[in-house]
């Protein structure tokens, strides 16, 4: 087991992204407040921000301000920019319970899993609409 060492140095996070509406809005406005520590030949990183975020941990809300350290002349990462976040490939939104839209427009209705066709609800030549229940399927 790895021993716990109090006050051990931790690597600073390179990018912190905000997801709350408040955090995004204030972060977007904070981008405009970039510090102007340039033109003096100094290699000290510029402090950009603060980016304000509201973080919720165990239903408790914390307001945090994050500063980005940027090398002189380098563009800021624009943490929490106003652009909408790209939805993740694995969305938490799931379709309705037990509903499986197969083929996604291909015209083929595929079995979602190994199982038994419980009931065929349509016949050859029947007209169907998108999303219409076709076979009832059950896993043995």
């Amino acid at each position: 087991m790895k021993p716990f060492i109090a006050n051990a140095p931790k690597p600073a996070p390179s990018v912190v992204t905000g997801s709350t509406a408040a955090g995004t809005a204030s972060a977007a406005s904070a981008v405009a407040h970039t510090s102007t520590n340039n033109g003096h030949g100094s290699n000290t990183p510029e402090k950009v921000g603060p980016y304000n975020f509201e973080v919720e941990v165990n239903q408790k809300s914390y307001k945090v301000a994050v500063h980005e350290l940027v090398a002189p002349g380098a563009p800021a990462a624009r943490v929490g920019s106003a652009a909408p976040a790209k939805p993740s490939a694995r969305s938490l939104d799931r379709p309705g319970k037990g509903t499986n839209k197969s083929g996604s427009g291909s015209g083929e209705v595929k079995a979602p899993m190994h199982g038994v066709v419980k009931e065929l609800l349509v016949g050859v030549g029947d007209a169907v609409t998108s999303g219409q229940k076709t076979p009832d399927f059950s896993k043995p």
Partner: protein
Amino acid sequence: MKMESEVVAPKAGKISAINAKQGDTVETDHVILEIAD
């Protein structure tokens, strides 16, 4: 546990083929129905 799933048509059209019948055991991704435009 017995799981039931409703399989729905991915698009509107006419059923052109049915490749399984009631009570058939099918594998995952077996094409049960084909829908033509």
